[in-house]
């Protein structure tokens, strides 16, 4: 087994091209668990923590770019306003020690159905920047997840970063676990409202072989109280039911399929209601870019 430690992203891509079986490592919070447990090691570890250009984020009028090496800690402390859904999800990840190391790109590379940030990336319409010596391509998040712990990256590709459209409305995230802290999701839900377009996107986690959107629930957007006022109980119920209907959960040690279907429905209703309540807080959603130093 080799340990490869490039200091520039170009070098990293060259290394990955030369060793397609090399496994990239950032926070190591998933990969090292397996190595510590004696799982068969890959032929090489490609350590990206010395690639300074990945440990950065930037924002322009259209989108927020988050480098592959940005930790959850930074998502929480630095991107809470620009990317509130991501920050909410990041806050539920593991422990402070994990959040000091783990990254969005790591979550994507592992592509676990229970990864905490996937529902938010789905709900916000994120784009994964995949790069290789052949060039760079943008993978819409809807096309990224290919199966349980499988994704759309080619063997020679690395994740350079993630692009999130500037938010156009409130975002919410909630996660059920069987402990109050430091727990893997039994189910999770993210909702993101686009106030100008009057649309809602919903992502769910831990309730199907891959994270996925709840398209039928998104179709109910026109019935939401965009101009203020309370969320109609019947609409909320139909929204929750549509989210639950989008799932294909299993029984496992963390929860039953029936419980997952039920709890994701409850979370969907609640997060939608919270997001709509945030609408009333008279923020200027359409004009905001939230530009800040990066």
């Amino acid at each position, binding site marked *: 087994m080799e340990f490869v430690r490039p200091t520039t992203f170009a070098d990293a891509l060259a290394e990955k091209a030369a060793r397609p079986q090399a496994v990239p490592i950032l926070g190591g919070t998933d990969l090292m668990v397996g190595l510590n447990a004696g799982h068969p090691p890959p032929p090489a570890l490609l350590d990206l923590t010395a690639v300074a250009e990945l440990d950065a984020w930037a924002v322009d009028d259209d989108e927020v770019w988050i480098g592959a090496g940005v930790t959850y800690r930074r998502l929480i402390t630095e991107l809470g306003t620009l990317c509130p859904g991501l920050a*909410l999800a990041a806050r539920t990840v593991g422990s402070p020690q994990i959040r000091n190391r783990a990254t969005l790109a790591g979550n994507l590379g592992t592509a676990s159905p229970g990864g905490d940030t996937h529902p938010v990336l789905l709900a916000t319409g994120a784009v994964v920047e995949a790069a290789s010596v052949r060039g760079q391509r943008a993978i819409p998040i809807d096309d990224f997840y290919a199966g349980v712990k499988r994704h759309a990256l080619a063997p020679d590709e690395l994740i350079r970063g993630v692009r999130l459209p500037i938010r156009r409305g409130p975002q919410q995230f*909630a996660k059920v*676990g069987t*402990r109050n802290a430091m727990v893997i999701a039994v189910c999770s839900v993210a909702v993101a409202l686009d106030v100008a377009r009057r649309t809602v996107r919903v992502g769910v986690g831990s309730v199907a072989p891959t994270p996925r959107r709840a398209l039928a629930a998104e179709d109910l957007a026109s019935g939401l109280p965009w101009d203020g006022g309370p969320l109609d109980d019947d609409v909320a119920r139909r929204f929750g039911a549509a989210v639950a209907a989008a799932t294909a959960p299993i029984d496992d040690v963390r*929860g*039953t399929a029936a419980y997952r279907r039920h709890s994701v429905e409850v979370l969907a209703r609640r997060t939608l209601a919270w997001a709509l309540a945030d609408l009333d807080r008279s923020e200027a959603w359409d004009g905001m870019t939230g530009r800040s130093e990066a």
Partner: protein
Amino acid sequence: MTTQAPSPVGSATPARTPGGIGESPARPDGTLKVTGQFAYSSDLWLDEALFGVTLRSPHARACITGIDIAKALAVPGVHAVLTHEDVPGLPYYGLDHPDQPVLAIDEVRYQGEPVAILAATDPHTARRALSLIEVTYDVLPPVTDARRAVFDPSIDRVHPDGNVVRHQPVRVGSADEVTADVVVVGEYEVGMQDQAFLGPESGLAVPAENGGVDLYIATQWLHVDRGQIARCLDLPEEKVRLTLAGVGGAFGAREDLSMQVHACMLALHTGKPVRMSYDRAESFLGHVHRHPAWLRYEHGATRDGKLVYVKATIVLDGGAYTSTTPAVVGNAASLGVGPYEVPHIAIDVYGARTNNPPCGAMRGFGAVQVCYAYESQMDALAAELGLSPVEIRIRNAVSQGSKLATGQVIDSPAPLADMLRRVASLPLPPSTVDSSGDLPGGYGNTTRGEGVRRGVGYGVGIKNICFSEGFDDYATARVRLAVVGGEPVVTVHTAAAEVGQGLVTLQQQIVRTELGVSTVLLQPADTTIGSAGSSSASRQSYMTGGAVKAACEAVRTRVAQRLGHSTVELVGGKVLAGDTIVDLAAAVGDEPIEETVVFRHRPTVPMDPVTGQGDSHVQLALCVHRAVVDVDVELGLVKVVELAAVQDVGRVMNRVALEGQIHGGSAQGLGLALMEEIQVVDGLVRNPSFTDYLIPTILDVPPMPLTILEHPDPHAPYGLRGAGEPPTLSSTPAIAAAVRAATGLRLRRVPIRPEHITHPT
């Protein structure tokens, strides 16, 4: 005697030596532990030491048809690969009786059963080579239903000894004939809890020049380890020397052997030191758990809430081997009605053998499972009668003079009714405001108050302290008083295992109080002195504490004799002999005084095999809990808001350490109530990790206000009462009752999972 008679130093009564009993001096190992210098059993290391690993069965039940070690042995760096054929002596071990193979012989009876062991130069090599051992199995269908194992005569025998390890009935009065105004019946289940100590099973075995072995080990009872190891190694006990290494928690899981014999075998075979250290997954497979239980209870009472009878059938799943199942059965039977006066009793407790993971000791030891069930029954009875949960308990509470189910009279204070009134009168916590994880769901951001209901519940438990049922239990202590640099210094030597509970501190406190000497050194616990018994059953303050106290008294008598008195007082480094006061250092001079004492508690008797009657317990201890919970009834998520306890401890020896025991025990009960379960399907453990075996985090454990009462037990040293286990009993039913109060559900199983609340059956 060559010492000159010391001259008097005055007549003013000297100041008491600080740090004695009743105070809370700092732990003597505290500085080492906060600086990372304390040597736990997984930290031990010697040059040239090999690393030992264990190959375990992946099957719950299978015949072994072949083991090929050739490829593993050929790996460079591998020094030994051993199987059952290499066990030098008795190939079995066990605390109650030896039925557990050191290494599997022809058949494996549980997943994780050790099959082969291997030593190599380093952990990586060892683990890689281990995977090259080829074992062929003929897989058999496992026996996994404990009730069928006991009651279904058609089911396979797990072991030649049969599937019932022990059946203990209790019969009082005529429970099958009497009738009652009100009857409640309930079936309950308790899941398989794990001790989940943080320090993994580990140790270092070093071959000795005399053909024996030195083992540095984290255990609860050095001498009973040694006896088992010596028999398996076919060595005389004196050639097996054990020294206690740092213990990273125990809670019962270190009563049985784990890697002890294996490490010694590898060390003796290779002639090199061998260290072993389990990883977390292996630890979950490598020690016994708390017995899962199925319990059916029927309680009959009068209209005014007085219990008439209790009938119960209880099956405890002991898994593949005996371990301590017989004693666990005895506790469940003798304490099966709880701390209540019941005129008619019919209880049958069965310890089953199955192909599930072996179960044995865990804090509370058989009293935990029944406590959850009988307390659930008391709440059901209260509801049926329209009484409050506190009132029904007060109306039936035992007190001094009451009889237990065994007929044993409680002959020391048992102020249960007072304890219940106290806990019920504590102020209730305010409702929770949504801030930083305080609502159910914690940091998951699952509610802003939607679906949240508050509930309050009570639980009461009674636990036997010390070993019961006629066990010849004793503890040995050696106390040596010498003068070093002109100052008196006491050295204490016992074999008692400090597992975190603070016994080291207590020993120093006792010496300071009894001998008035402030400098108290503790020799490492080892087998060069007699047994101290086990650090379990909440017994070490009583037993090793009693032994150290008695040894101090013997030393004090020797001091008195030197000065020509029959008794003296030793205070603040001085000897008070009649009207004169002399320096203790002068009295001791250059002739140290050393006394070794064996301390025994009062004898107990076995339970009658037919009626369960007999004075089987040494001491009994009570704890009462009130739990306040918030439940998100739509998501089934629970946040314990407060967990208040009232406990009678006889005498407070060290308040800070005592509170730590009650807090810790309560938190483990919380874990059993809400999240902790080894999930076993078809005999296979599904969650052997801290990712999926969840123990409470700091966010899950609420404030735990304590009311500590001191009603001395006249039979016990200082009047103390063992305190570590009782809170583990009562916190579980209190929390379950609180969740019931919040949800209106019956909740007949712990741990309560979210789906039990959202999808009740």
